[in-house]
């Protein structure tokens, strides 16, 4: 049984009299990977800063193992803070060599130079950048810089590694590399990893547990078909633009970037496109079939994967198979905005 390494109770944070975070209870177990998901402004970064002891909540209690942090002296809090580290979304490398960047956390902890050298070497190996010690920070590519930042965090051997949107600003190739690194860190040195992401599938791929935040509160379950995109106005109506060439008709007053979800029970499947009042209809291919008791869950790729749920009876009647080409139809009002 893993021990609880970090726990918060009833924490609240308010900025300019707006509640940005209101979490009743949250516990993290040693050695696990956690993903915190939620739209922009849902309080993810604030939560990370509070967990990492960089910001104080206005109310509530926090525990590191069994020690109540609020009751500690500043010196003890610094000691606890030094057992964790946060890698920001838009990370910064000091204008030094890679070596001196990674050495920083060790120097301020008074680590002897011999040990520093070793730790720096190991950290660079772990992120797949051996021999990068003497490179200057400004000579690195974006993906390399991201990995050096993680090496810098690993060198101090944190109990908990926080990563704020670690893959937000890098290309797909580096995302794969970074996901592998996160897995390795957790497996090989048993670091507890807590990261935030926009990408739900990434969250489920990497994490043992997914925590969803919405408007500063933890929501019990992530809705299916949660998508991130842009509300645009065209021909006098509002559209939700997910990826290029795919846009859903929606009913909203909002503009800009939003999350939407589509209840899988409200999506109709058919072989032929049919005339109806529903304004959204897309051709796609069935990529996954999961049978659950009397319901069947189908994943259909229309450019983005969408999940639909139909009864076992209609699944059998329609004779759907993997790879079948089908139309998905749903009303604009079935698209729920956050």
């Amino acid at each position: 049984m893993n021990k609880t390494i970090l726990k918060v109770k009833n924490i609240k944070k308010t900025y300019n009299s707006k509640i940005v975070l209101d979490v009743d209870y949250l516990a993290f177990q040693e050695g696990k990977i956690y993903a915190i998901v939620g739209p922009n402004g849902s309080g993810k970064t604030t939560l990370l800063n509070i967990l990492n002891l960089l910001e104080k909540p206005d109310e509530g209690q926090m525990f590191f193992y069994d020690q109540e942090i609020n009751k500690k002296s500043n010196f003890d809090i610094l000691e606890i803070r030094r057992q964790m580290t946060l890698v920001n979304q838009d990370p910064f490398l000091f204008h030094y060599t890679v070596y001196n960047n990674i050495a920083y956390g060790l120097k301020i902890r008074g680590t002897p130079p011999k040990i520093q050298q070793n730790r720096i070497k190991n950290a660079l190996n772990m992120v797949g950048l051996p021999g990068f010690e003497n490179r200057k920070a400004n000579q690195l590519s974006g993906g390399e810089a991201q990995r050096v930042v993680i090496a810098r965090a690993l060198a101090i051997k944190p109990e908990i590694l926080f990563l704020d949107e670690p893959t937000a600003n890098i290309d797909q190739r580096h995302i794969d590399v970074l996901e592998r690194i996160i897995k390795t860190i957790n497996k090989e040195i048993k670091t507890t990893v807590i990261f935030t992401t926009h990408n739900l599938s990434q969250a489920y791929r990497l994490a043992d547990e997914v925590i969803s935040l919405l408007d500063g509160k933890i929501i019990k379950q992530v809705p299916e078909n949660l998508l991130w995109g842009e509300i645009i106005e065209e021909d006098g109506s509002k559209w939700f633009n997910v990826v290029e060439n795919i846009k859903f008709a929606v009913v909203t007053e909002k503009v800009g970037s939003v999350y939407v979800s589509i209840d899988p029970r409200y999506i109709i499947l058919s072989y032929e496109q049919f005339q109806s009042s529903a304004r959204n209809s897309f051709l796609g291919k069935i990529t996954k079939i999961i049978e659950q008791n009397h319901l069947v869950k189908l994943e259909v790729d229309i450019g983005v994967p969408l999940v639909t749920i139909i009864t076992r009876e209609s699944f059998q009647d329609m004779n759907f198979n993997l790879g079948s080409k089908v139309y998905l139809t749903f009303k604009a009002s079935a698209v729920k905005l956050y």
Partner: protein
Amino acid sequence: MVFIIEGIQKAFQLIFTLDKEIFIIVLLSLRVSLIAIFFSSLLGVYLGFLMAVKDFWGKNFTIASINTLLALPTVVVGLTVYSFISRKGPLGVLGLLFTPSAMIIGQFILATPIIIALTHSAVQGIDERVRNTALTLGATESQSAWMVIKEARYAVLAAVITGFGRVIAEVGAAMMLGGNIKGSTRTMTTAIALETSKGEFGFGIALGIILLIIAFSINILLHYFQSKRV
């Protein structure tokens, strides 16, 4: 015309024969200005840093005042310090007037606003993420502040060098507070003023050349640090 050419000849002669009097004056000038700059840097970098990172009541007014002090006439500093340390002044008992210490005080007052103002803008130009990154890696508040100054190191050095350039070349305060006493408070600039009025052009030109070489070196250094800024 002839006296100018003779003066220049005499000047090179003095420089290349390492004339003792000239070098006493040069060393005294450097000593006074370096000590003044040392203390100005301690205070100026600290205050400039605080002004950049802290918000306080009257901040804009303070910045405007500091910027005004950049153009502070050296004779006004001389006058002010003089009135304090002259025998009748409130600090008269210390007997500072016409000592190198008096010149150091005057030059300290001249250089500090420059270092404050330039450090302020140097630190303001530093990425906000520096402080935050240091904190996430376990730095204390003061360790993270030190990291910000280190990130601004070239620009802060440029601020210190600019301050030095101002005080090594000023004459008003040094003359009024030091009194131009031979061997004790005679600096390059005050000596040039005196020797010129005596008609000793060679001596004046020699010091002028040395002063120019120093100024040139300072500017080369400054240029080097400013180019490293980016």
